[in-house]
């Protein structure tokens, strides 16, 4: 891995260079939250872009770019093809890149068959991760195997030094991109690295303060044996079934296929699905193993913290805290896990 230096004033030029590779999305602050926006080479102050990079993870999970909430995947009887163009996504935090590598890749790239559309996007899209120097109170990556900074998984990583940004090159694709950037990127000074390391330590300290306790190491067993429906009913007492937690989750991966008649043929569409839907588990004839909401809540915890760790040695949660921030009923997943 090599590191380079990007002066703050050059952030817009950096985005413009990235945009030569493909449509580039970058974080921008809207109503105190970071959201992804398409880079259109507008005149945006470098400092504004810098502040947006420092924000906690963007509202949208990274999977939105790789899975999409709705996409056509086949047609019948006519043939189907898909043109997936390169994209650059700037602003993913460690929790987000881990949601791709540790969760979505395990689901969509491993097993008996691969999802060809996800695979092509993983090959063609460039991910620029960014350190997370100001984690929110809802963040708990540190307690679930993550860090507030990324040293692997993306193609480039941006971190914050004394006077500018440190660009770590993390992949061959990333190397190819920075090579084309000419003298935009400079040699990095030791004092910049030192400052960056301090930011990282501070962020870790803040996370540890917000989340003082570790989760129980035997969460899979605790979930397996927690069969008391009153426990789950109590855990979701404030739930209004808005499903925001699932829609915003960076690791939820479920989808549903359905066919739409088009002319004399049929188009097959894949839509992301949510296990809180009453019909999620229903089979032909109407039998529904997840008819009760408390069963569906337990099912979600079982999927993330029991089945996934047993199958892939990692929880299907990266501690991004979106579900806590987005919950209408103020339910905190950390409290449910600790109560188990």
């Amino acid at each position, binding site marked *: 891995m090599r590191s380079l230096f990007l002066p703050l004033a050059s952030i817009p030029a950096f985005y413009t260079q990235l945009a030569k590779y493909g449509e580039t999305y970058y974080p921008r602050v809207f109503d105190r939250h970071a959201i992804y926006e398409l880079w259109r080479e507008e005149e945006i102050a470098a400092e504004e872009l810098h502040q947006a990079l420092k924000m906690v993870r963007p509202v949208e999970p990274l999977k939105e770019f790789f899975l999409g909430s709705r996409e056509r995947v086949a047609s019948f009887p006519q043939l189907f093809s898909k043109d997936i163009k390169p994209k650059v996504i700037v602003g993913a935090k460690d929790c987000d890149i881990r949601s791709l590598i540790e969760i979505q890749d395990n689901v969509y790239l491993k097993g008996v068959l*691969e999802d060809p559309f996800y695979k092509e996007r993983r090959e063609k899209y460039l991910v620029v991760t960014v350190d997370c120097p100001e984690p929110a109170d809802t963040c708990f990556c540190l307690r679930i195997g993550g860090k507030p900074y990324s040293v692997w998984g993306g193609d480039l990583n941006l971190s914050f030094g004394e006077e500018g940004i440190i660009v770590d090159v993390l992949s061959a694709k990333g190397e190819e991109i920075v090579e084309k950037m000419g003298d935009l990127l400079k040699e990095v000074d030791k004092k910049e690295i030192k400052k960056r390391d301090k930011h990282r330590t501070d962020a870790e300290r803040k996370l540890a303060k917000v989340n003082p306790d570790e989760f129980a190491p035997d969460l899979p067993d605790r979930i397996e044996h927690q069969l008391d429906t009153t426990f789950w009913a109590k855990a979701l007492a404030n739930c209004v079934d808005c499903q925001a937690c699932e829609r915003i989750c960076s690791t939820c991966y479920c989808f549903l296929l359905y*066919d739409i008649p088009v002319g004399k043929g049929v188009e097959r569409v894949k839509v992301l699905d949510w296990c809180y839907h009453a019909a999620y588990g229903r089979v032909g004839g109407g039998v529904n193993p997840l008819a009760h909401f408390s069963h569906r809540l337990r099912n979600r915890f079982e999927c993330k913290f029991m089945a996934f760790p047993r199958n892939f040695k990692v929880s299907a949660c990266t501690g991004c805290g979106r579900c806590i921030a987005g919950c209408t009923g103020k339910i905190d997943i950390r409290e449910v896990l600790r109560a188990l």
Partner: protein
Amino acid sequence: MNPYESRQAKVKEVIIETPTIRTFTLEPKPALSFHAGQFIELTAPGVGEAPFTPSSSPYVEESMEVTIMKVGRVTSKLFDVRPGDTLAVRGPYGVPYETDRYEGRHVLIVGGGVGLAPLRSLFLALLHNVSAYKKIHLYYGARTPRDIVYDRLFKEWGKIKNVEIRRSVDVGDKNWKEKVGVVTVLLDNLPFKPNDGLAVACGPPVMMKFATKRLLELGFADEDIYLSMEKNMSCGFGKCGHCRLGELFCCKDGPVITWDRIKHLEDPFV
């Protein structure tokens, strides 16, 4: 390869088995070969897909039969299908029956209602090499005599050497001379020792639950009870998440799963 894509399948024949069950003979192009126990996703044009296990012999490659009960949206549409119409299929998915493990042992097949359909595929596959097994015992239960699937075939199957057949109905009629009662009544007085055989079951969830209970009482080993698990299988290859059963996915780890792999779950048959 696009795993979401189906291939065309012409409907060659439609056989009315019971008032609510029909068998469709399909000719997929290109041909779709499968092993007993694997399933396909069958498309009812314009309505959607549903998973079905073929009911024909896996040794017949140019066509496949699928026996379907009319229960929901997709199956209702399939009942409008006539010979000559074109459907679409993709697959096969799932893990086949481990028939190598069955050799030299008694094979007890326990079916309830339309659950006999996937078991018929296994039964026909076993008949292909019938002398390899000590005996094949086909035990089948239906609600009434008119609900019996493959009634047209039982007589012929009963004549096969090395095959024992028992049937029951929940409610008989004046012509019914065989057993009356739920399918588990057929498990009384087994003609072989459970440790000399294995059991394969498929049927409605409640039947599976009580059949498993009875098989365990009789002394069948956990790993010798093969159960066809019913879950909502949308993609068929372990991605969509719907058919998760504990740590397993019915589509890629099943749909036939031995009891030892799911017995720790609260109620796998719900």
